[in-house]
């Protein structure tokens, strides 16, 4: 029986290796054909051009980075303060109601966020900023910020709750107010957990596809806050159902997937480091 169970456990390893293998095998040919420099730093993505298709993913690469950074800048402060409220400030009964509300926010499917973004946010941005179209990096950043909020809140709350009560009691006994204690004692003591929350948020934002596919406009422009943009994920999503199997276009999509895979692995590595750092401290 032990052998069978070990096989089950190994399945996870095998699946990960299969995914890595397929992405590398399917992703490398197009990169080799276009040249790594041209692929990563080329600013033109014109995959359907029959005579001279161009496969430069720099616009998507930068858009993904800007999108994740923007989501973190908007989402993390809100998430952090919400977590302080949930872990420290809120009356017990209220916290008990708010916790499930946060996990509900996490459970709402990304297409629903996309739909609300598409029908409420995009027209509002167009009207407020007097744009020809509201589909933009800004719209995507706002949607992403909302979507990373629950995981930021969750990890930060857990980290804040793990701070030893003695720290806080000591601070209060020395005459600090409650608010000073939360922000100057509890938060610094929970910093590695909060760092992990930020890194997780970055990972989530880099990986999201469907919601931003519906609000970002999907033109492979260089990123600009009010421009229609295409992310690494949406770059794959928008052409996947149209690229014919075996074509260079489809191979190039797998190359984007490979780049995204490498990015996510780096983020995971960073996440492990920050979480391990907390265990060591």
């Amino acid at each position: 029986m032990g052998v069978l169970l070990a096989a089950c456990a190994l399945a996870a390893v095998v699946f990960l290796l299969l995914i890595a293998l397929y992405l590398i095998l399917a992703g490398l040919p197009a990169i080799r054909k276009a040249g790594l420099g041209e692929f990563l730093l080329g600013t033109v993505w014109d995959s359907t051009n029959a005579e001279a298709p161009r496969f430069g993913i720099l616009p998507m690469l930068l858009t993904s980075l800007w999108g994740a950074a923007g989501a973190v800048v908007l989402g993390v402060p809100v998430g952090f303060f919400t977590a302080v409220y949930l872990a420290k400030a809120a009356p017990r009964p209220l916290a008990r109601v708010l916790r499930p509300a946060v996990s509900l926010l996490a459970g709402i499917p990304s297409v629903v966020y996309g739909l609300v973004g598409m029908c409420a946010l995009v027209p509002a941005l167009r009207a407020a900023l007097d744009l020809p179209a509201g589909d933009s990096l800004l719209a995507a950043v706002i949607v992403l910020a909302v979507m990373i909020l629950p995981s930021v809140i969750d990890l930060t709350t857990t980290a804040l709750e793990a701070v030893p009560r003695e720290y806080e009691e000591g601070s209060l006994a020395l005459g600090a107010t409650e608010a000073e204690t939360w922000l100057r004692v509890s938060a610094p003591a929970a910093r590695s957990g909060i760092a992990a929350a930020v890194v997780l948020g970055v990972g989530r934002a880099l990986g999201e596809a469907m919601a931003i596919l519906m609000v970002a406009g999907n033109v492979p422009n260089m990123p600009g806050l009010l421009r229609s943009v295409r992310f690494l994920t949406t770059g794959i999503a928008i052409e996947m159902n149209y690229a014919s199997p075996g074509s260079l276009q489809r191979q190039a999509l797998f190359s984007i997937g490979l780049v995204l895979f490498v990015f996510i692995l780096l983020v995971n590595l960073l996440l492990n480091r920050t979480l391990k750092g907390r265990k060591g401290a």
Partner: protein
Amino acid sequence: MAKGRRRRAWNLLAAALPRLGALVTVGLLAFVAGYVLWRGLPGLSWALLTQEESVLHGQVGIAPCILNTVYVIAVSLAAALPLGVGAAVYLTEYAPRRRLAAAVEFAAETLSGLPSILYAMVGSILFCTVLGLQKSLLAGSLTLAIMTLPTVIRATQESLKTVPRSYREGALGLGAGKWRTVRTVVLPSSVRGIAAGCILAAGRVVGESAVLLYTAGLSTAMQDFSSLSGLVKASGSTLTVALYVYAKERSDFTTAFAVATVLLFLTVLLNLTAGAVGRRR
């Protein structure tokens, strides 16, 4: 006393910000849920839920999509549950070699952080092309099984860890072997936690769209589930994919929001059940 005034101002701000953060978070949830209900409830009807779409009779219906969703949940859980529980049992009860356990845990962690669009790409090669399943609900379900595997492993592990050592020692002392102990004592007492994990996994499956969009097909017509070959060949959209198709490709927002409302109710239901099952231990 400029310093005292500054401290008081800082304190006012520091006490207000967590409340403000929580207010923003709750406001966002209220807005998203309220907006979906406001636009979706008018389009929701018994007929919509129980009928099949028919251009001929000018009727819309999402019954096929609901069935497809049930199919995908059932098949992906049926595949992920034995593998995940087996892996978790191995990791917590057997795991003689630390290195193997570490590798499995690393793989599960990495798998849980991968963006769904990467699963979509690999699933479309592995299941649709290499294993010859074409675009089908089966291919989509199997891809989702890999994606939810880490969730099942994690939940089962947590649950197994709460079973007291004395239970195991009692069983072993009565002469039961390792596997008998696990099967008759450890697993039955952690059934609740495993069930909660399954509901969590089902939630991920319900919310997932990118994977299914590229592995399971887009059809909103009724599939033939009456025979085995029908079950294997069936290809169509789940609720999330249908939402995307209605909103983005058919610009039928009444139906899209009605589907979003159904998804919202489903999410609330799954969250409540997971909470209820997980709490009573």
